[in-house]
C-alpha cells in the first residue's frame, strides 16, 4: 500500500533547529505538581515542610536541639496570598551558599552522601521559592547568622528559571539577637482556609516524631500553638556510610572506578564501599577471576572486566551494612505517638477524615488542644489507671478508653545498596467504630506523609497483608476495617519517593516485604490479644447461659426432691464460675470494658 500524500513536511533539518536544552527549573516550573505545588492548598504545606525539613536536618547535624517558629501571615488585600516564614536556631548558612541553596534547583549537601536525612534532593526549598516567585513575582528572603559575634545577613534571592541559577537582588548586614540560626520567608499564592487542616496535622505529627523539637506555630486569626520540647535527648544520630557493594550495578561500578583516586582495584574496593576489608576484597577478586594487581583504570575502561567484578561481588558473602547509618523513631516513641494521635482522633473523629489529595471542601474553625507534655500525659495515665484493673502488657488507658498498643522494629535491610529500616506501631480498641477503615499514619525519615495515600507503597503493603488472619475484617484489595490505627515509619539513607514532592513511597519490593513483615509481627500480637478477649467473652457468654437456667433448674430439683433451693442454686452458681474460667474471665473482660455497667452481655445481645 502506498503512503498517502503528505500534507506538510518538516525535514530532519527543520526539526533539528527546534531542539533545545531544557533547564531543570523550566522543567519543574511547568511540572510544579511533581514538587507538591499542584494547588494553592498543597503549596502552603509543601513550603512549610521543606523549610522545616531543612532546619531539622541542619540542627541535627550540628548537634543543636531545634527551636522553630512557623508563621503564616495573610497578605492584606489579597485573599489568595500568604507569607510563610520559618525561623530556626540552627547553625546558620554561610553567606556565599545562600543564593544557591535558595535560588537553584538540584543543589545541596545531602544528595551525594548516604545518610539518613529529611531532605535528600536539593530541590525542596528552592522549588518553594520558585513557586512563590512565579505566582507572586516576589523573591525569597533569608536572614542567617552562623555564630555569636558574627555578622548576620539578609538576602533577597531570585531564581533565573531559564538557566537555573540564582540572582541576588539585595544583600545587607543586619542585627540578629540570637547567636545563630536562619529565617526563610516567602510570599506565595496559597489557600490557608483549606490548607490549615493539613498544616495542623503536619505540625502535630512532626512534633510527635521529633520529641526533641520545640515548636511555635503562629497562625492568622487564631492563637499561637506552642509545643514545648518533650525530650532533651536528641534522636540517635545517623552516620554517613559508603555504598554497599551488593547494590552496585555495572555502569555505576565503572563510573566509580573512573572517579576513584585509588590505583588498584583492591584498594578501590576497600575504600569506596562499606563492609569490604582487605580479605573481602581478595575474595571478591578471586570469585571474579581477576588478579589482585588489577588497576582501577582498567576497570573503568573495560566493560567486560567490570561485569566480571560485579559477578565476583555478587558471588561473595559480605556483611550487611552497619545500622548506625539509620535513626529509627524507636518503640517507646512510636507508642507515645500513637497514644497522642488517639487522643486527637478520639476528640475529632468526625471532623478529620483521612486526608486525600483532593480535599472535598474547606473545614474551618477546628479547635486544637495543644499536645500535652509527657509529664502531663503520665499524670493522666496514672489517674485513669488508678480507677481500673491494672492493664495487661500492651494495654494503655487513654482518656478512660482502653487500647491495645504494640510496635515492631525490623532489623535494617538493604535495597539497591541503600540500608533502610521499617518500624510499625499498632493501636487497637477504644470506642472506635468497628466498621470504619483503619487510620494509617505514614512517616519517612521522621517526616509525616500526608498526601497520595493511595499511591504509596506503605498503603499497598498494608492492603496486601492478610488482616483476616489477625481477626480484622478486610474488604478485598483494601485497607482493613476496624478500631485500629497504624503508624509506619521508614528510615533510610535514601527513601525512594514516587515523585519529587516526597508524598508517597515507591513500590520497591524489598521495602514492601519489610513493611509486611513488621505489620505481620504486630498483627500476630494483636490477634493473640483479640483471641484472648474473644475467648473470655465466650466464657462469659457461656456463664451467662448457665446462669440463665440455674434458677429454673434449682426450683425443679427442689420441687422434686425437696432439697434446699438456695443451697442447690448456690452450688450451681459456684460450679458455673469454675467451669467458665473463674476469676480470670472477669478480669480480662473488666479490662476490656470502657463502661463497667455495660460489662455483662445479656441474652438480648
Amino acid at each position, binding site marked *: 500500500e502506498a503512503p498517502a500524500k503528505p500534507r506538510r513536511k518538516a525535514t530532519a533539518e527543520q526539526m533539528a533547529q527546534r531542539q533545545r536544552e531544557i533547564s531543570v527549573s523550566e522543567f519543574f516550573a511547568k511540572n510544579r505538581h511533581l514538587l507538591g505545588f499542584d494547588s494553592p492548598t498543597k503549596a502552603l504545606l509543601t513550603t512549610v515542610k521543606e523549610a522545616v525539613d531543612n532546619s531539622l536536618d541542619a540542627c541535627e547535624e550540628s548537634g543543636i536541639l531545634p527551636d522553630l517558629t512557623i508563621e503564616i501571615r495573610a497578605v492584606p488585600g489579597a485573599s489568595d496570598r500568604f507569607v510563610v516564614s520559618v525561623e530556626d536556631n540552627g547553625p546558620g548558612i554561610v553567606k556565599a551558599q545562600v543564593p544557591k541553596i535558595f535560588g537553584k534547583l538540584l543543589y545541596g549537601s545531602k544528595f551525594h552522601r548516604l545518610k539518613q536525612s529529611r531532605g535528600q534532593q536539593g530541590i525542596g526549598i528552592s522549588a518553594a521559592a520558585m513557586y512563590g516567585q512565579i505566582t507572586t513575582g516576589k523573591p525569597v528572603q533569608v536572614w542567617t547568622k552562623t555564630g555569636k559575634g558574627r555578622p548576620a545577613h539578609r538576602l533577597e534571592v531570585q531564581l533565573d528559571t531559564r538557566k537555573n541559577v540564582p540572582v541576588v537582588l539585595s544583600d545587607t548586614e543586619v542585627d540578629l539577637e540570637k547567636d545563630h540560626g536562619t529565617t526563610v520567608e516567602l510570599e506565595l499564592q496559597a489557600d490557608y482556609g483549606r490548607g490549615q487542616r493539613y498544616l495542623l496535622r503536619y505540625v502535630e505529627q512532626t512534633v510527635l516524631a521529633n520529641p526533641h523539637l520545640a515548636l511555635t506555630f503562629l497562625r492568622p486569626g487564631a492563637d499561637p500553638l506552642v509545643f514545648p520540647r518533650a525530650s532533651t535527648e536528641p534522636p540517635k544520630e545517623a552516620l554517613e556510610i559508603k555504598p554497599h557493594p551488593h547494590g552496585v550495578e555495572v555502569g555505576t561500578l565503572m563510573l566509580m572506578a573512573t572517579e576513584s583516586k585509588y590505583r588498584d582495584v583492591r584498594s578501590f574496593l576497600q575504600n569506596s564501599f562499606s563492609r569490604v576489608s582487605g580479605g573481602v576484597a581478595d575474595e571478591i577478586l578471586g570469585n571474579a577471576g581477576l588478579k589482585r594487581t588489577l588497576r582501577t583504570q582498567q576497570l573503568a575502561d573495560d566493560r567486560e572486566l567490570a561485569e566480571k567484578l560485579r559477578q565476583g561481588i555478587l558471588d561473595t558473602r559480605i556483611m550487611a551494612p552497619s545500622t548506625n547509618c539509620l535513626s529509627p523513631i524507636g518503640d517507646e516513641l512510636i507508642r507515645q505517638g500513637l497514644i497522642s494521635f488517639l487522643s486527637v482522633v478520639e476528640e475529632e473523629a468526625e471532623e478529620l477524615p483521612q486526608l486525600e489529595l483532593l480535599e472535598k471542601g474547606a473545614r474551618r474553625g477546628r479547635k486544637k488542644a495543644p499536645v500535652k507534655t509527657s509529664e502531663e500525659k503520665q499524670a493522666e495515665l496514672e489517674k485513669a489507671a488508678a480507677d481500673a484493673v491494672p492493664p495487661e502488657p500492651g494495654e494503655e488507658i487513654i482518656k478512660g478508653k482502653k487500647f491495645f498498643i504494640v510496635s515492631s522494629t525490623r532489623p535494617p535491610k538493604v535495597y539497591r545498596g541503600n540500608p533502610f529500616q521499617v518500624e510499625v506501631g499498632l493501636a487497637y480498641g477504644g470506642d472506635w467504630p468497628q466498621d470504619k477503615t483503619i487510620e494509617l499514619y505514614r512517616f519517612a525519615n521522621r517526616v509525616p506523609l500526608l498526601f497520595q495515600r493511595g499511591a504509596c507503597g506503605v498503603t499497598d503493603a498494608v492492603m496486601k497483608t492478610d488482616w483476616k488472619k489477625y481477626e480484622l475484617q478486610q474488604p478485598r484489595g483494601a485497607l482493613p476495617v476496624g478500631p485500629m490505627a497504624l503508624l509506619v515509619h521508614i528510615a533510610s539513607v535514601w527513601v525512594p519517593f514516587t515523585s519529587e514532592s516526597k508524598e508517597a513511597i515507591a513500590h520497591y519490593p524489598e521495602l514492601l516485604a519489610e513493611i509486611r513483615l513488621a505489620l505481620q509481627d504486630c498483627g500476630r500480637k494483636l490477634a493473640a490479644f483479640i483471641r484472648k478477649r474473644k475467648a473470655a467473652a465466650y466464657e462469659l457468654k*457461656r456463664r451467662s*447461659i*448457665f446462669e*440463665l*437456667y440455674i*434458677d*429454673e*433448674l434449682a*426450683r*425443679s*430439683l427442689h*420441687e*422434686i*426432691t425437696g*432439697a434446699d433451693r438456695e443451697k*442447690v442454686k448456690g*452450688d*450451681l452458681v*459456684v*460450679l*458455673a464460675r*469454675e*467451669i467458665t474460667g473463674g476469676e480470670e474471665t472477669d478480669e480480662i473482660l473488666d479490662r476490656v470494658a470502657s463502661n463497667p455497667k455495660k460489662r455483662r452481655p*445479656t*441474652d*438480648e445481645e
Partner: protein
Amino acid sequence: MATRDVTAKKTLAKIEALAKGVVQEVKKRKNPRLVVPLRTLSNVQFNAKKKIIELGADKQERAFFNVAQAKKFMQTFLVASACKELLEVGKTTSIRDLYYMTKHTLGDTRQNTFDEQDESDPIIEDLEVTVDALREELHLFANRKGLMVGPMTVIDSGDTIDLRRQGSGGWGVPSIVEPNVIRFGKTEAKYVLLVEKEAVWSRFNEDKYWKKEQCMLIHGGGQPPRGVRRLVQRMHSELKLPVYVLVDNDPWGFYIYSVIKQGSINLAYESMRMAVPGARFVGISSFDPERYRLPDETAIRMDDGDHKRIKQMLEYPWFEKKQWRRELEAMASNNKKYEIEALSRRGISFITEEYLPKKLRDRDFLE
C-alpha cells in the same frame, strides 16, 4: 385404680431418683449429667422376625454445664417436676397442656422456658426413655387428632358409644385408649380403613362407605398420633381385623404407612404396642395415576425436599422390600406426586365407589 396408684408411685420414685442424683453431683461440685437413651436412626434396628423397629442400647450423656445441652437439661427437670405434680394429685393432662403449664419467661430476660410445643414434646420423650416410663405412666397424653366411625360399639370410660350413629361428626379418638379406658363392644366390622387426611375421611363418611363396606373408618390427621395407632393396633390384634392404609402418593404419605406397619425411629421404644406388621397399603400407588388414568393436570411436581426424603427413606434398612422400593423409585422417576383428592377428577365419589372397592377386590395392595 389401685394398679394406677402403684404405677404412679413407681414412676414418682424414678423421677425422684433422677433428681436426687443431680443434687448429689452438684453437691460434689461435679458437672451433673443425665444418661438418655438415643432415639436416633443410628440407635434403632429392624427386628426382621417381629417385623418392627426396636430401640437399641446406645445412650447419650446430657450435661448441664455444656452450652448446647444446658437448656435441655433444665427443661427435662422442668417437665419432670410438672409430671411429679400430676402424679401426686392423680390427674392426667395433654402434652400440649404440659407445654402451656411449663412455659414461662426466664427471670427478667426475654427467653422462655419453651417457645414452641416442638421443643417440649421431645423432652417428654427423652424423659420417658430416661426414667423408663411410658407417657401414660407420666400421666400425660398426646394431642388428639383423628376421628372414627363404623359398625362398632365402644365403651369409653364407662360410656357406651355407638360408632354407627355419629352423624357427620364422628367420634374423637382419645389419646389414651388402653383397655382400662376403652373397651370394644359389639362389632360387625370386617376391616379397618385408615386414611391419611380428615378431608378424605369426611368424603368416605358422607358417602357412608363404612356402612356399605362394613369397615371401621379412621383417620389420624396426617401422621397419626399414638392414640389412633394404638387403637388400630388393638383392633387388629384383639378383633383380628385386617388394616388397610390409604395415603397421599408422596414420600410423606408412604412413610405414614410404614410407621403404622413397623413403627417409627422416634417412638421405637413403643413399637411393640403400636406397630401393626400386617397393615396393608392400598394407595395411592405410584402406578395408580397411569392405571386409573388420572389427568396430567392433577399432578404436583416433586420438589427437592420430596426427592431428598425418598433418598433418605430408601436408605432405611426397613425399606428394603422390593415392592416398597419399586413404589418409591417410581415416584422419584415420575417426578410427580398426587393427593388422594386427585382421584376426584374422575368423579367426586370415584374413590369410594370404584377405586377402593376394585383395589380390595383385586387384592391390589402392598404388605
